[in-house]
């Protein structure tokens, strides 16, 4: 059995290596032609793929999935199309350093159930732009739609002259096989987007990995904020695809002095404030008690579906279920990440208490991911940002769309968001093409005149201390 898995993995990697070998011969023009063809085909399939994704997974809203596909194709393409990814990509005559981009080799990409087609397309685009073949492992509940996205991209790539097997899919459902491929010595890099277990498996494989796991996004509404605007923005984000973006708001924190206004505004904008009894009912269906992780049965479900499952009644047209909590952690299950239109709400007695709550929530499974602040006080924005451990702190912006980039700010559009070392990642950046190339630096001889002007013998003199060495080093000759 083990041998069979290894043989199958060898077969896939052999194909990928041949594709990689051919790909590294491509020039920029050939590469860009392939990327453009894939972008066009994927963008044209945005609606079909969105509908397939919702139909197969039962998660989210197809219209929002269309927007995700647009982000994963058009916005990603526009952000990378002019990037130099082949050969000499920079040449600095002052430093004498030239940079040469080299592909990495086969990339193993894992795609999540929440964004199954958009993440696949985005990963294919950035891999092909960097001349890396890609092997995709989809979530078992999204194998068909992810497979279709990959097929469309692959056929378009082939039609534009891409190497055979530059896009491959592995059969979904076998964790063992996924891990076998992941750990294969010919895999150059793993791009893992998904749950904690998956990311851990990627890092344990022995291959380099960019693994991006869960978040738990706190959003602070400062007294200086435009409250109706802030609430509208939060709703726009938290309801987007029924809250399936990992950067979507998980909790809103306010000071006591504006709490009533915020509560009223949430209610006015069709959010439903759960009673303590209703919170208990929602907790039971939203969070798995033993693991304190979100229940897969409510991920990406509508408010009405969640309310029905919980056995509560909410007004028709309710956008978000708001749960006012008094604490953070295992005794307050709704303080954990939930990718559904359920939002925790906290009232703190003052500004410092509010920020401390944000830190607590930030550390509850979301270190390094994303956070949000609504404020018109720059000092507070910067103070909040320094205290929160997040790769992206988005300001006066819906966090789902803001963290992903490309629409509300100038962050590179990406469906894999680095979480820094707090999230066990090597970067806090939005993952894009530049993370998928090896940059070689050609360093021409440029003498350090200061160093070579110093009398070498003084370094050997025990009586010559740091001050003397510094003065000698910086002396004008």
């Amino acid at each position, binding site marked *: 059995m083990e041998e069979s898995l290894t043989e199958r993995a060898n077969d896939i990697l052999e194909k990928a290596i041949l594709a990689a070998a051919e790909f590294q011969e491509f020039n920029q023009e050939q590469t860009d032609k392939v990327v453009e063809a894939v972008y066009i085909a994927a963008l044209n399939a945005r609606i079909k793929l969105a509908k397939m994704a919702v139909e197969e997974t039962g998660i989210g809203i197809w219209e929002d999935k269309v927007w995700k596909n647009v982000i994963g194709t058009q916005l990603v393409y526009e952000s990378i199309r002019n990037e130099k990814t082949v050969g000499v990509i920079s040449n600095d005559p002052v430093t004498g350093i030239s940079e040469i981009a080299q592909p990495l080799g086969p990339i193993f990409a894992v795609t999540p159930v929440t964004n199954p087609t958009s993440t696949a397309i985005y990963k294919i685009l950035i891999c092909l732009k960097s001349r890396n073949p890609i092997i995709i492992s989809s979530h078992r509940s999204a194998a068909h739609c992810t497979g279709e996205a990959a097929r469309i991209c692959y056929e378009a790539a082939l039609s534009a002259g891409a190497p055979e097997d530059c896009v491959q899919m592995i059969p979904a459902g076998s964790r063992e096989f996924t891990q076998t491929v992941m750990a294969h010595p010919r895999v150059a890099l793993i791009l893992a987007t998904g749950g904690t277990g998956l990311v851990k498996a990627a890092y344990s494989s022995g291959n380099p990995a960019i693994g991006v796991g869960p978040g738990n996004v706190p959003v602070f509404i400062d007294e200086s904020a435009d409250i109706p605007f802030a609430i509208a923005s939060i709703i726009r984000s938290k309801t987007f695809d029924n809250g399936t973006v990992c950067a979507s708001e998980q909790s809103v924190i306010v000071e006591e002095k504006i709490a009533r206004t915020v509560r009223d505004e949430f209610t006015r904008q069709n959010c439903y404030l759960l009673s303590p009894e209703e919170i208990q009912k929602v907790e039971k269906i939203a969070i798995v008690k033993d693991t304190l992780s979100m229940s897969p049965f409510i991920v990406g479900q509508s408010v009405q579906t969640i309310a029905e499952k919980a056995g509560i009644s909410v007004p028709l047209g309710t956008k978000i279920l708001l749960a006012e909590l008094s604490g953070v952690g295992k005794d307050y299950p709704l303080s954990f990440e939930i990718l559904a239109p359920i939002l925790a709400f906290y009232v703190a007695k003052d500004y*410092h208490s509010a*920020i*401390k709550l944000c*830190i607590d929530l930030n*550390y509850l499974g979301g270190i390094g991911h994303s956070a949000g602040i609504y404020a018109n006080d720059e000092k507070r924005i910067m*103070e909040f940002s320094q*205290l929160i451990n997040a790769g992206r702190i988005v300001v006066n912006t819906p966090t789902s769309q803001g963290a992903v980039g490309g629409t509300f700010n100038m962050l590179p559009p990406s469906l894999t968001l680095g979480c820094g070392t707090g999230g066990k990642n090597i970067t806090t950046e939005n993952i894009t093409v530049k993370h998928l190339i090896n940059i070689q630096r050609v360093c021409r001889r440029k003498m350090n005149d200061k160093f070579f002007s110093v009398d070498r013998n003084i370094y050997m003199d025990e009586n010559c201390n740091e001050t003397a060495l510094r003065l000698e080093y910086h002396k004008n000759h």
Partner: protein
Amino acid sequence: MLDFDFNPEEKVLTCFFKGRLDTVLSTQLALELESKFQSLSENADKESFLDFSLVFDVKDVSFISSSFIRLCVAGNKRVKEGSFSILNSDPFIMKTFKIAGLDGILNVK
């Protein structure tokens, strides 16, 4: 730099720290604290002293060194589990305990 408030009825010793608690000052404060413990334990048998709650109030503290964190850990060991707390930390100080992974154990509020 360090004031005490001892409430014998509620069995709570509150220590009010002030200023920048660098290594030098924290070492000095540790001695003051130890002296306070000694004087309190002289007036009570050892077992009942362990029943006391110990509160470090850091409202007027602007910086904490690792020595102060060690002082907190030592304070926590002097009382029964759950009887130690740090009150009125500002967000920067709270984050320091968070990074040290001690905010839960030391009950930082």
